[in-house]
């Protein structure tokens, strides 16, 4: 690697924001350089979305088999309990991650993007030095796209290490803990906690707020609460984790619920999942003269920062910290740099929780619409009345699809769902909102029978006052 690189576009960070920006910039013929300190793929691919979904899949399959060994169902019985080999599962998961990471490298190569491995340190807004394996490389760029992502937020009273782990470590544990305490009942804590519970770990949740998943309305969260309750998984609400100490070869976590006397929870591993914070440390952000928006880098609708030709995308610029938002922004910024007129103005950024059951939220909930002074009509259709759901044993988890529309012109404002496999419906929801669909558009689109998607037009019909199957 030569000591100096001059490039049109420098992308900092190889996650779903950065690598997409780099691919698109390369496609558009821009001379593009991407710097990544770790493997390509970012949090999403290496230690987030993908590995956690792999783990959740394994856990669900294992739990299903285990259930069969206890109680035969639909004609299937297992004579003995299934075995679980965590290292083998991790190896399988790592294989998927490797495949995808290699795939990203291939895509970047195809787009003629120069990839520099190492940590970038900015001296000023357009110049950075990357400490590669061999020698430092100085990169000067016309345009800089910052896509450094986020890191797991910790709690000062629960320092990392000695069994106190973040989601990153939770995805590569050497062995299953017997007892796991999860601090934070947001989507990360719940997804992982539920997966470990399915693998036979005794899991307890500690949440400082008065409810889990506070960004989703209560109706959506209720089936998850019921699933946890049915399995005796304790969720301590209004509870703060105050301290952790080593005791008897395990951990003792001191928690306090409201004003009650503190109590100790014994566990082997403590997973702290209290959210994520933008990764703004250690790469010279302070030398770039950017305006901040709280902890985030401040950007406009084109993802411009306060510095000319410095752009920032993804988790670095604010909520929602979701891979697909970062990718959309990355693609957009590359096109703007290439001279196209673009703006980040989605109708909705869909969000999914891979809990048990899954939750999808796209657009406004009825309460959010009301808060904006919009009069709404809503329709809700339960999966208990959907044939396909019943054939997949997915009709009994309290799941439903809910459509929210403006009362006056039936413009669909939001579609929400909870239930098994609903994450796969999220694309239809987002598509309807982006296309400006009205209730009638959804209701009059023929959906395949028998599929879970039939619940969507039924919910729209419900909002119109004439649902057919309920």
């Amino acid at each position, binding site marked *: 690697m030569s000591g100096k690189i001059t490039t049109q576009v420098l992308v900092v960070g190889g996650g779903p924001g950065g690598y997409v920006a780099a691919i698109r910039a390369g496609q558009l013929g821009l001379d593009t350089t991407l710097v990544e300190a770790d493997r390509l793929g970012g949090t999403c691919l290496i230690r987030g979305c993908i590995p956690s979904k792999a783990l959740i899949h394994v856990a669900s399959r294992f739990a299903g088999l285990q259930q069969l060994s206890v109680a035969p169902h639909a004609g299937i019985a297992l004579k003995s309990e299934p075995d679980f080999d965590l290292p083998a599962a991790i190896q399988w998961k790592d294989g998927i991650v490797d495949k995808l990471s290699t795939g990203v490298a291939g895509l970047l190569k195809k787009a003629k993007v120069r990839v520099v491995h190492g940590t970038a340190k900015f001296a000023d807004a357009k110049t950075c030095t990357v400490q590669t394996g061999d020698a430092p490389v100085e990169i000067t760029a016309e345009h800089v796209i910052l896509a450094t992502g986020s890191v797991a937020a910790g709690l000062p009273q629960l320092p990392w290490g000695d069994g106190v782990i973040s989601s990153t470590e939770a995805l590569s544990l050497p062995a299953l803990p017997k007892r796991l305490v999860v601090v934070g009942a947001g989507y990360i804590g719940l997804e992982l906690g539920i997966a470990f519970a399915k693998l036979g770990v005794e899991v307890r949740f500690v949440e400082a707020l008065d409810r889990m998943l506070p960004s989703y309305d209560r109706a959506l969260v209720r089936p998850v609460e019921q699933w946890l309750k049915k399995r005796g998984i304790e969720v301590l609400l209004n509870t703060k984790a105050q301290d952790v100490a080593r005791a008897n070869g395990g951990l003792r976590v001191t928690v306090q619920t409201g004003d009650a006397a503190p109590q100790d929870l014994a566990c082997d591993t403590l997973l702290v999942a209290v959210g994520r914070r933008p990764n703004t440390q250690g790469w010279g952000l302070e030398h770039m003269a950017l305006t901040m928006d709280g902890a985030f880098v401040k950007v406009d609708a084109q993802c411009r920062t306060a510095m000319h030709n410095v752009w920032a995308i993804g988790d670095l610029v604010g909520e929602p910290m979701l891979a697909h938002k970062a990718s959309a922004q990355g693609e957009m910024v590359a096109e703007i740099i290439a001279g*196209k*007129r*673009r*703006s980040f*103005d989605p*109708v909705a950024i869909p969000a999914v929780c891979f809990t048990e059951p899954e939750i999808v939220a796209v657009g406004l909930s009825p309460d959010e619409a009301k808060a904006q002074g919009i*009069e709404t*009509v809503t329709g809700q259709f339960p999966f208990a009345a959907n044939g396909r759901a019943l054939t997949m044993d997915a009709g009994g988890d309290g799941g439903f699809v809910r459509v929210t529309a*403006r*009362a*006056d*012109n*039936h*413009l669909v404002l939001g579609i929400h769902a909870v239930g098994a496999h609903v994450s796969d419906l999220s694309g239809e929801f987002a598509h309807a909102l*982006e*296309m*400006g669909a*009205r209730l*009638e*558009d959804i209701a009059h689109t023929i959906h395949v029978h028998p599929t879970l998607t039939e619940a969507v037009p039924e919910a729209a019909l419900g909002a*119109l*006052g004439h649902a057919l199957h309920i």
Partner: protein
Amino acid sequence: MGRYVFKLSDVGEGIAECEIATWRVAVGDVVTEDQPLVDMLTEKAAVELPSPVAGKIIELHGEAGDMIAVGSPLVVLEVEGAGNAKDEPPKNEPQKKISSPPAGGRGQGEGGGGAAAVSVPASAAAPAARPSPPAPLPQAGEGSSSVRRPGEKPVAAPAVRQRARDLGIDLRLVAGSGPAGRITHADLDSYVEGAGRVAASTQAAPRTGVEDIKIIGLRRRIAEAMQRAKQRIPHFAYVEELDVTELEALRIHLNETRRPEQAKLTLLPFLLRALVQVLPRFPQVNATYDDEAGVLRRYAAVHCGVATQTPNGLVVPVLRHAETLDVWQMASEIRRLAEAARSGKATREELSGSSITISSLGALGGIVSTPVINAPEVAIVGVNKLVERAVFRNGVVVPRLTMNLSSSFDHRIVDGYDAAQFIQAVKQRLEHPATLFMTEAV
């Protein structure tokens, strides 16, 4: 369970019908006794009708804007016990609706919105101006769309948004012809063609929306009153200029030295004071004319209407017995009445019974206006804006504060000569403000 039919009771003043202003409840609501059911508008004021019983609303008769005859069923409730009505199939009772303006968008059924190309039916046109009818499931017609309110994001598919950006067109300027006001590729094409060139971002979109708004409530009252006055009364206008330099000096002095509890003086109390002094000499001006009975009723008292702009429109609260009040009391009474009118709390008594009316738009008063008489009165005096002018005095140009009074009179009752005499007498008082406070007849 029984049915209780709540009928529109007599709200007084011999009123035979009332307009529904706002429903406070919807079908299915459970109400307690004395909970407000509906706001009804009489000629003058809004009346809140409470529920006489506790129960569940099963029928509402009429929508906002409908006229309902006294004695007609208004609300049917399901109540504990027998109720006051025999069981009968709901919804079959004919509704004694007297008149209803042509239906707007709300009542249109499926497909009824008409595929009215770019023009926009009234559906959601003015939700703020019109209370929502209680229909549990509004039926937006297939073709109905809506007007984008300021700040509302245009509805357009991603490809349309992308193309608009490529063309440098701000979609907020483009009218949407699709359902729910959705902007189509064709809309974008016609916008580009209309603008004549592609770099059209500074070109404003042609405004193609048409809004139909049901004129109901206070606006209908105003419209009817104005039409009646202009159709029946042969108005004539008389405008005179006043030199109010001295009056302004006095007003400013009084305001600077007023006690904290005293309301700030505007010009109106002084005008009122002048009217109180002058009107006894012109009894035909301070009067109401019943043109059907052929009777002119002249008043000894000065009950002065004060035209007041409220958020919903023009309202004329009445300052009673102005002859008993000094300027400070008048100022505070005018302020109190204006606040009551603006907040909708003015009583029917406070909104009726005037014998003459004054109208002032303050700094917006313009130089001349032709006020419409507040029938059945016969005169209205309007105040125009105060302005400093160069005026000849003893052969020298001096700056003076001047102001016009624009008045209208009912020519059937008031002759031009008398009107001129009347305004001249008012002018004398206001130009020499000391005379306003002299007790003997001047």
